């Protein structure tokens, strides 16, 4: 995965984590999404009782609280740029979550928050 894409992902998730809606949704939960992009564990998003953290590589913590997301860099880029909904990518087989603790829906919610932010950025730039 390109370094630039990693930065896009990291920046967006950090911004998502600062929103009030995200904090409210993840308030009670400890969970980690490990992203495997183009077959390689590239980064993980850790939720810890209202705090969202992004880090490169493989999550070193407890395996039982980790959901695995498998995708390719093109799909991830399209999602992060707000051009593709993860739900649609999932239907197309480009995005697979091996979810633990029924955690798959929450990641879709976080990415929907991100998509709305990206769209707002685009509209602001056009204005």
């Amino acid at each position: 995965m390109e370094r630039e894409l990693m930065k896009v992902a990291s920046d967006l998730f950090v911004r998502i984590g600062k929103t009030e809606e995200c904090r409210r949704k993840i308030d009670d939960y400890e969970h980690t999404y490990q992203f495997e992009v183009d077959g390689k564990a590239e980064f993980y998003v850790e939720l810890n009782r209202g705090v969202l953290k992004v880090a490169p590589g493989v999550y070193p913590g407890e395996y039982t609280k980790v959901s695995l997301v498998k995708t390719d860099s093109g799909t991830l880029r399209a999602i992060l740029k707000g051009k593709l909904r993860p739900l649609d990518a999932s239907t197309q087989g480009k995005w697979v979550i091996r979810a633990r603790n029924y955690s798959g829906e929450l990641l879709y919610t976080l990415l929907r928050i991100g998509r709305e932010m990206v769209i707002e950025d685009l509209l602001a730039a056009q204005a």
Partner: protein
Amino acid sequence: MVEKLVHGASLEDEGSGAVSQMKGITLELLQGARNFMKFAKIKEQVEVAILVSRGQDDDVINALVIAAEERGAHVTVIRARGRTERYNFPGLIEEPSRVLKKALIGADVIIDAGIAALYAVGARHIDKEYMKIARSEYGAFFIRSELLSKEIMASEFGRMPCDVIYEIGRRVSSMIEQGKTARVTTPLGTDISFNLNPRGIMGSFRPLNMPGDMLAIPGGRVGLNPEHGYGILYAEAINPMVEPPQVLMTKPIKIVWDDNWAVEISGEGENTEWLVQMMETGDRNARWWGECMFGIHPKSNAFGYPSAPTEVYFTGVHSRPDTLHNALGHSAGAGGVVSNRHIDTFIHDQTLYVDGDKLIDNGHLLVLDDPGMREFASRFGDPDQLLRMSPMPEGLFKCRRD
């Protein structure tokens, strides 16, 4: 004894025998509603949308609102058309209103407390796009209340702490997870077998999990995705939600399974012709054996039978440990087969074996006798009382065992 509630309503505690003569919101009714909200994880600042159906008892709805607001939630009640109204307005099969769909994405928790208020569109409304968006993209919990009447809400079924049900479910699912094969027999002649897949276990037997999760409360059912299933099933009833001509038949329908496929549907059951037609008009997976599910809630029953609407009393039937249902069509568990049909066919007084060991013996869930289970239940009351099953109403299942 008269007690004042936080909302100023008068509360008459009429004691445990008051169910049949309740007026207004009794303590028992409120206990059922409070139990529900506790296990729905309702807390301060949570936006709760309660969907109810027109014509439903106001005391049931008000008890839910009071119990949610006591926990600090912000509650909105949406009253929509319920399924029972379809009898008065035949042909009303339509999507929920646009207003309702929009409202769903504003809620942190959606409680479907109506008599199938979202159900005008068919059994798989949870697969509809509006529900996917609400649950997945907006992280709303979707909770189906099974406390559909005052009698149910105030009953032991409504008031029993769900911790006990979840512990029963944990023990049952753990036994299934370790098994390879299952077999189900009934006195009526059913003898079916299938392979078990530990990833295919689902149902309402566990606590609510992360945002977007869905659950029925009180629930109390464990379901399996049968694999390579064979045998003969003698079905005695069909879930009323799919509107069969007659829910509880006087003669069974014979269904022959061959590698998870219903190769034969025959017999003198009143719904046989209807079921064959549902298969013919369904999609290509309609004959798939999509589910085998049984109840685990010892206090579940056909509350209100026979005077209540079938949708109301039958909800409690399928959480009873002495009933089991097999679905034709859509698989309820993860990784299953997709179909536009999901028709639950019921048997009762079943014996369920996992790897040859009995899990249910002639309708009796053996986990309820387990010393560890009884010790757990004793934290919440007398285990004899909590784990003892209520008898099924006489004459509910009608097929004769000649």
